[in-house]
């Protein structure tokens, strides 16, 4: 005998589930959106892990110094794909939304586990896109460190996605194998119209933002969080000299760049002495992990030249250190290939003028194919290893 209250609840539950009458809550729409979203998340995940490895390399990891703009492409792709995923994810979740109110809510242990595994998938996917959008808008609305949290949740979300794909593969195959079923005539949008609208949403978001790294679009990317032309010396800045609290140190007449470590003679060089060394001018992008990039004409001393002057052995690696007292990124490392690359510079000039304080005056690192956070500014020391 079923308790009357229970029977009532069952009745309400069944009625709620029956209210979702749009034919677009179907398997085929979910399958098509799911595949598109899976590809997009795959691109985001791979480019994201790549960026993480470039910044925190494992022993096995190898990253070339050429082509100089490769990271610009991979990280631009990471952010652009994430942004384009916003309408995809929302459409996918809307399509399968009636399953949230499936009745009875739980049919046994297996069903309960399957449903619970959707929390890291749905919550994790939303977390990735929301924190990503917040980060490129520099809206730090949370207490956690963005990169660490975004990285950890990425693995959990992709893990939940792997389970989801495994569980739903037969549904996807069934839905696609059945071929397109015409949507009923009274549906507001046909399936094709719905999918085309989602694609249009992704396309509009991309066009309106990608100009922050892809120059041909800069004029129409009116929603780009950055404009690659806007900033001191025509190049955007993440951390200003005032923000980094280095203004006193960089304007001190006693400023010297120290080169030490595994060298036959330590050097302590004034700005004039650095300018007197052989200079090289190269065009290199500054590429932010936040997805913007801008090309600059940098002029300065090749790191390899400097190390030779200090009598370092061939094949040495090095680390550079900023005047900044406290920053996650005050030190960055250069491996032997990066040191040996002629385009790895200690830059003194940008676009024909001495570096603006916000670009790292008196001297900064600029090297090919590297994230901006590793292009350390306001250098104080080069340690050879």
């Amino acid at each position, binding site marked *: 005998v079923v308790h009357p209250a229970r029977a009532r609840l069952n009745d309400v539950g069944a009625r709620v589930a029956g209210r979702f009458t749009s034919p677009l809550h179907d398997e085929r729409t979910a399958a098509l959106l799911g595949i598109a979203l899976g590809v997009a998340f795959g691109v985001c995940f791979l480019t994201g892990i790549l960026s993480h490895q470039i910044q925190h390399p494992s022993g096995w990891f190898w990253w070339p110094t050429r082509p100089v703009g490769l990271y610009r492409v991979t990280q631009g792709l990471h952010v652009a794909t994430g942004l384009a995923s916003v309408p995809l994810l929302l459409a996918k*979740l809307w399509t399968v939304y009636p399953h949230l109110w499936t009745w009875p809510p739980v049919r046994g242990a297996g069903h309960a586990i399957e449903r619970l595994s959707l929390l890291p998938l749905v919550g994790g996917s939303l977390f990735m896109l929301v*924190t990503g*959008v917040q980060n490129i*808008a520099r*809206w730090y609305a949370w207490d956690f460190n963005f990169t660490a949290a975004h990285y950890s949740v990425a693995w*959990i979300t*992709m893990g939940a996605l792997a389970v989801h794909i495994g569980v739903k593969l037969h549904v996807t195959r069934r839905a696609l194998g059945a071929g397109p079923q015409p949507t009923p005539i009274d549906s507001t949008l046909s399936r094709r119209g719905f999918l085309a609208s*989602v694609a249009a949403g992704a396309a509009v*978001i991309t066009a309106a933002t990608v100009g922050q790294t892809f120059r041909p679009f800069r004029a129409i990317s*009116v929603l780009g969080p950055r404009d690659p032309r806007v900033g001191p010396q025509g190049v955007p800045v993440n951390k200003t000299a005032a923000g980094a609290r280095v203004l006193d140190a960089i304007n001190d007449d006693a400023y010297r760049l120290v080169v030490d470590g595994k060298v036959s003679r330590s050097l302590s060089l004034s700005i004039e002495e650095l300018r007197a060394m052989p200079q090289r001018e190269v065009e290199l992008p500054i590429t932010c992990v936040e997805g913007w990039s801008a090309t600059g004409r940098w002029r300065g001393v090749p790191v390899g030249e400097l190390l030779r002057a200090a009598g370092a052995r061939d094949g040495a690696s090095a680390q550079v250190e900023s005047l900044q007292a406290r920053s996650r990124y005050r030190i960055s490392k250069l491996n032997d290939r990066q040191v040996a690359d002629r385009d790895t510079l200690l830059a003194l000039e940008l676009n024909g003028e001495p570096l603006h304080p916000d670009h790292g005056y008196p001297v900064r690192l600029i090297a090919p194919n590297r994230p901006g956070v590793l292009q350390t500014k306001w250098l104080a020391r080069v340690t050879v290893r």
Partner: protein
Amino acid sequence: MTGPRWPVVTGVLVGAAFGAVGLLSLLNESHDTHPAVVVRWVVGLAVVHDLVLVPIVLLVGLAVHRWARRAWLAGALLVSGSVVLVAWPLVRGYGRQAGNPSVLPRNYAQGLVLVLAVIWLGALATALVLHWRTKEEDDR
């Protein structure tokens, strides 16, 4: 559950490995990740999405279906909604930084209006083209 077992087994194995990497990273770097805060955001976003955002979308969808059943209208609303969500933090300028005008350098309210105008013009143009095309087919 029907279908072959190998995709499920593979998915669960890969998923468990990836999940373990993520959880270990979350816990090992807890001074940076603040796991409790992350969990609150993950669960909170799912709840807000399921109980606030989707119901709003469903109500709008229902209204369009009932009173203005036009494909171009539904499509334009879908695209506009996505763009507004992405543009919102920029329009509000939460990330603006005194002393760094290269951060959020554009007028995003104006930008959003412009993009919305393009979307609605595009939707109307699509509607007209589709309308003429069906008319031609009907006339034939």
